[in-house]
């Protein structure tokens, strides 16, 4: 059954994408490690680190696309799941520092010694084991998503309201993680990592391995996402997105469907965060900033929501653009990003990949699509009203 599940996921484009990702996972580290720095084919370490970062962002965008593009839940709090995964990884890396910190305390990370703490808080227990930390990378974001979604979907909080409370969630976490007494390093976050699984995080080989890991995890998550969306469950998911009430009347438990997707998506985001942290070398509360989560929405929108490849392309393109602009013309980056937001919503509502898939429909067809969408929304009202009356 599982094989069938996976096999169904292997649609043409997904196969190509996964093949490319695996190729990248092999080729880029190879070009970085095996070629001499003078060679034309050489990929410098900083470029590889940058690309590794993009891949993590791409995974985050994929996670958001799963809930937004397929389930219609616009989460403005996905940065929170990303950061939580990152913190779980960061905690593991902090524990690996051991007595090599500035204060040389074998048990406590530097910031706790600095705050005059005497013993490790209970929630830091177990993070010295890699396996436990990796479990937490999945469990912590998943649990938060479960609790949050369980309440929200059961009370049928949806649309705009859901977006706003997810934003409130990440904002509350931002404020919470800024506090020193939380035990997560406060303002400065977690940094100064030494090694991961016994390998120096700064070493070229470790970096190459982390990069390869990012590409492979992205490929793996893409496979899972594809399997989900191409299964029967995936069809229902799209049904929930397009006409939630109708799916409910057909007898599906919409809240459970949403909850499952939301939790899976949060776990993807957690994985992305966990891969991100050792590559950039720091995790701090800034990752919870609501603006970050909104930026993820843009990557997804640019690439094309409702397509699995789109968000990956969108995240990589926008971030590559960001790296270029902030380096070359720092003052116009925000103009470019803002313009991109507006242009994509106005002219490319399907995003890059979506537009290519549907062929370049002219403005007319676009307008028709918008009209149809409007009509659908308007049409949905009486149905919903009848239900309300029936209830």
């Amino acid at each position, binding site marked *: 059954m599982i094989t069938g599940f996976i096999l169904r996921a292997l649609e043409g484009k997904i196969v190509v994408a996964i093949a490319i990702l695996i190729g990248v996972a092999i080729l880029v580290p190879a070009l970085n490690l095996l070629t001499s720095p003078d060679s034309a084919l050489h990929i410098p370490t900083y470029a590889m680190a940058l690309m590794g970062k993009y891949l993590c962002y791409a995974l985050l965008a994929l996670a958001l696309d799963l809930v937004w593009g397929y389930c219609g839940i*616009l989460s403005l709090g996905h940065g929170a799941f990303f950061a939580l995964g990152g913190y779980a990884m960061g905690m593991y890396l902090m524990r690996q520092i051991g007595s090599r910190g500035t204060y040389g305390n074998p048990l406590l990370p530097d910031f706790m010694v600095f705050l005059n703490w005497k013993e490790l808080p209970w929630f830091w227990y177990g993070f010295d084991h890699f396996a436990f930390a990796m479990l937490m990378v999945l469990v912590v974001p998943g649990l938060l998503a479960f609790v*949050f979604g369980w*309440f*929200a979907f*059961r*009370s*049928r*909080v949806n*649309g*705009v*309201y859901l*977006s*706003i*409370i997810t*934003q*409130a*969630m990440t*904002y*509350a976490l931002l*404020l*919470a993680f*800024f*506090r020193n007494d939380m035990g997560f390093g406060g303002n400065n976050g977690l940094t100064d990592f030494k090694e991961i699984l016994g390998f120096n995080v700064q070493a070229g080989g470790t970096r190459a391995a982390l990069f390869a890991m990012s590409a492979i995890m992205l490929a793996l998550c893409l496979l899972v996402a594809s399997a989900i969306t191409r299964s029967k469950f995936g069809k229902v998911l799209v049904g929930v997105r397009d006409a939630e009430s109708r799916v409910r009347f057909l007898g599906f438990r919409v809240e459970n469907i949403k909850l499952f997707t939301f939790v899976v998506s949060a776990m993807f985001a957690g994985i992305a965060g966990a891969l991100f942290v050792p590559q950039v070398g720091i995790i701090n509360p800034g990752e919870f900033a*609501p*603006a970050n989560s*909104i930026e993820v*929405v*843009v990557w997804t*929108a640019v690439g094309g929501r409702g397509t699995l490849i789109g968000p990956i392309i969108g995240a990589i393109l926008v971030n590559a653009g960001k790296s270029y602009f902030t380096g070359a013309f720092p*003052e*116009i980056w*925000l*103009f470019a*990003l*803002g*313009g*991109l*937001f*507006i242009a*994509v*919503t*106005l002219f490319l*509502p399907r995003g890059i990949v979506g537009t290519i898939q549907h062929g370049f429909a002219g403005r007319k067809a676009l307008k028709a699509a*918008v009209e149809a*969408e*409007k009509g659908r*929304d*308007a049409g*949905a*009202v009486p149905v*919903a*009203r009848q239900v309300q009356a029936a209830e």
Partner: protein
Amino acid sequence: MPIRFFTLFFLIFSFAAPAFSQGADPKPLFNQLADADFGQAESIVAQIATSGDIRVVPALEAFAEGDLYFRKADKAVFVAKPAGAQLDLIDPVTAESAGQVAKGAVTKIRVNNTLRRAIRAALGGLTLMSPDRSVRLAAADAILLSPSAEALDLVEAAIAKETDRDVKFRMEEARAVSVLSSDRSLDEKRAAIQTMGNLGGRSALGILSSVSSTIDPSLKADLDAAIKAIQNEQQLWDLAQNVWYGVSLGSVLLLAAIGLAITFGVMGIINMAHGEMVMLGAYSTYVVQEVIRSHAPGLFDWSLTIALPVAFLVTGAVGFVVERGIIRFLYGRPLETLLATWGVSLILQQTIRSIFGPTNKEVGNPSWMSGSFPLGGMTITWNRMWIVIFSLSIFFALLVVMKKSAFGLNMRAVTQNRRMASSMGIRTPWVDALTFALGSGIAGIAGVALSQIDNVSPNLGQSYIIDSFMVVVFGGVGNLWGTLVGALSLGVLNKFLEPSVGAVLGKILVLVLIILFIQKRPRGLFALKGRAIEA
């Protein structure tokens, strides 16, 4: 303590009424000091004090400091100040200069502690009996703040003469405070404790608690009762102060959210650029103030009044352009308005940053917004007071526009049923544009007010956007009253959580409570009924 005592009286006198004379001329009395021994000097000082002539105060102070001299030649008494090798002589009554003499030509009038006490008493009596009401009041207040047994006789003498009801009341209180530190009888002290219990206030509480260890055991019960009474009253005032802080924060939230109540609440646009409209309003204030500073400094107190229409027009115009240029293509796709308006907000931020730079801009407070005034046991600053008044007036003005004007009628009609409104001949695109412009304009006005209490920087809007959405969603989308109640209750809730858990945790708790509240009532406190809820 004596130093403070004197400084206090000196300060009081530095703004006292012009010289005033009654009773005997103090000048000959001063001259008698030249031959007097300590005992005689004491009675002379008392006589000087009974003259009631407040011009003698500096001379008496100089006497206590040992700066009073008499001229050997004619035994005339002067205040002397060192001027190089010589001494400046100053007339003790008129304070006119009487020339310079060599140090050998004068003799210091000696002073001892008993005499100093007498002088201090005389000084206190002089101010307590000053013909100027405000000086008497200030003197009584001074004794209230730093009571002493020595002042008691003076206060009692002053009470006997006092005719002004308020001042007399204050003096009675000062007397009660002084009795406790004197060696009067227990009954008098008991009465004093009761007076202080009725008086209340932090200083009374402090005095009562400080004497509680030394006081006669038989008075202990009365003392505790009085302390308890004051504490209860104090708690009530603390509560009132907290409510006020809450209302004040709530009014800031209301200001920030009220424009959003139109663009998001009424129109359903997730306007992420709302915070930037507030920011534009604040920068309009800055520009207006700069223009006034360089061209018409005299108008500075009017700068906010001038900035209000300017900010409204600027942000309203920006809102109009944004609606016509971007948002009108996105009706029916609320989640995408979020993206587009977020883009607008980034562009506006960067534009302001490019023009004015990334640093905070200085926006001044006009004089009528500075300072504070006491209200019972709490202190209210004028700028907070004005912001509360201002936000409520904007709220009610908006309510009138929505409910009573033709434009408001059109606006509500378009919101409730666009097609029907259009069929009735309402130009819906025009109404959309004006509504969005109105919401943006109000955000701009809010920016004028917020520029008074917050840093004016390109990031100003970012700090308000989440709070604003919380307020509107909590209050109930599409309901202005909900926004008012939401803002005030969130403000008060925040301020009540703050003392026990701290500011940041308080804010986190409020956010969590809102998230939970939305689960219970997904449409907010005051949900709209009917079709609008499905939009």
